[in-house]
């Protein structure tokens, strides 16, 4: 498939936003049960939610560049019963609204304790909103990934690993950003976030490499034989019916030489996984913001390459019909 930058930015930016929110909420959960110190509502959760919103809004904005008619974009909410894309279009703004609410409740301290259990664990309003937002965050990961995973003849995508990878890689980049944010605030949660970011990145490494191995062994179900229905071992296309370009020759092939394709795979394998893990581990205990910031930048750029590769690797069966001018 041809990787569109609008979709690459949409999926990576909203992944960071979702991951950052999940990091903030994980921190809050741990602080409720007093495993980690309680953070400042105003500067930590309020501003943190705002940063998550900026990333989500960036993703939403870039998605409009993918459309031929952005002004009709609202129509995309119509078919949520059948279309994962439609579901994403509904869930993304809903998630943004909930993150905004979560941030506002923290920022303006509109955070009454709703109930208390075991006498010293206080469940306040933000914790309840956050729980709901967490569910929606995972739903958004599911919707985004299922857009690709539900197309059964794009065999490179049609696997549960797609959903797992989107979730883990988005969360990992979000936790890395949370580490930068916490280091900037000189928060005691810095190492907590860094630890989670390392764990999620390593988990992502396992699942992403699994999907690479799976895809390298794929046997495509469609062949020229089934495409034109002629049973012969030797079929060669002599003409695709036109000599100029068409939508079919542009949209379904990445157009990069094989060497670039291979290079990008190694770029993302190095930039998304070992480099951030190394930098995060180095930074732990030192609160060195520059190291964490570098880790995030490298990981995000690596994720752009990862998403490019994700699209480029998918081999659409329609390409069988377009092999020779």
């Amino acid at each position, binding site marked *: 498939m041809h990787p569109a930058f609008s979709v690459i930015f949409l999926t990576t930016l909203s992944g960071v936003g979702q991951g950052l929110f999940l990091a903030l909420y994980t921190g809050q959960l741990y602080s409720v049960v007093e495993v980690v110190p309680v953070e400042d509502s105003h500067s930590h959760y309020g501003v943190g939610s705002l940063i998550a919103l900026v990333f989500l809004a960036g993703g939403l904005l870039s998605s409009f560049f*993918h459309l031929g*008619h952005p002004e009709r974009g609202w129509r995309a909410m119509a078919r949520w019963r059948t*279309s994962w894309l439609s579901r994403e279009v509904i869930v993304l703004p809903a998630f943004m609204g909930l993150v905004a609410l979560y941030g506002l409740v923290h920022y303006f301290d509109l955070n009454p304790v709703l109930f208390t259990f075991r006498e010293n664990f206080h469940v306040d309003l933000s914790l309840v909103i956050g729980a709901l937002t967490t569910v929606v965050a995972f739903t958004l990961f599911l919707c985004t990934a299922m857009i690709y995973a539900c197309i059964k*003849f794009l065999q490179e995508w049609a696997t549960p690993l797609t959903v797992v990878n989107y979730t883990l890689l988005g969360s990992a980049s979000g936790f890395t950003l949370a580490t930068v944010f916490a280091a900037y605030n000189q928060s005691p949660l810095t190492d907590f976030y860094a630890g989670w970011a390392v764990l999620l990145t390593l988990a992502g490494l396992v699942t992403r490499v699994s999907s690479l191995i799976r895809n390298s062994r794929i046997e495509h179900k*469609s062949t020229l034989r089934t495409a*034109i229905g*002629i049973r012969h071992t030797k079929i060669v296309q002599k003409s695709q019916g036109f000599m100029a370009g068409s939508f079919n020759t542009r949209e*379904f092939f990445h157009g990069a030489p094989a060497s670039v394709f291979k290079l990008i795979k190694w770029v993302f394998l190095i930039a998304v996984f070992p480099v951030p893990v190394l930098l995060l581990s180095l930074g732990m205990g030192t609160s060195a913001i520059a190291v964490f910031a570098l880790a995030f930048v490298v990981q995000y750029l690596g994720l752009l390459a990862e998403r490019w590769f994700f699209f480029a690797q998918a081999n659409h069966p*329609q390409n069988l019909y377009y092999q020779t001018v």
Partner: protein
Amino acid sequence: MTQLALVIDLNVCVGCHACVTSCKEWNTSGTAGYMADMNPFGHDPTGTFFNRVQTFEIGEFPNTETVHFPKSCLHCEDPPCVPVCPTGASYKRDEDGIVLVDYDKCIGCKYCSWACPYGVREVDEHQKVMKKCTLCVDRIYDRSLPENERKPACVMACPTSARLFGDVNDPDSEVAEAIRERGGYQLMPEWGTKPANHYLPRRRTRITIHEDELTRVDNPLNKERQLPMPDKDAPTLDDVTSW
């Protein structure tokens, strides 16, 4: 349930592209707007087409055969492009099974083209919406046309009658009979899309003849030939017998 479709006979298609040009001609003058050609005379021309004729070579020289293969929307009975559409712009008509795009609702997200394994949907570069074969829905119901012209433009244009049009679910129709009796098949059956358009295979007319059938064992001529020719001077039957 009615399912209008094309049946394309690969046995008689000569690859003349008349269906391609007449399709473009009819549909570019349609009410839904023209099918844009960008840079038609420039460096990198591109354009929207609903129908293409491709050419494949089967086998290895000298035992090769050329197959011309017209390809347009197959109007699947279970179209994978329809449920993925987020706006409902892509739909399948209940009354005749034609898969259409509502150009006023399409947001141009291209998702349906990803979800079509046959690559028969194209974004119109000018209108920025997804376009595809309509089975000439604006022709086949047009009562101002004589009844024998209420067919898709490609069917009208085909000089070898390689394209048949009709209801594939009506067992008595020309198309259903052709599928049934001339080995009609569907493309990429592995994805369960149940394409309504069918293709009729290439067929070589061939008689199977065995060696012993070439000479008739009981050929009376053979019997005669076995006998030596009578000598010129030998008496004839007339000389030795009296009738």
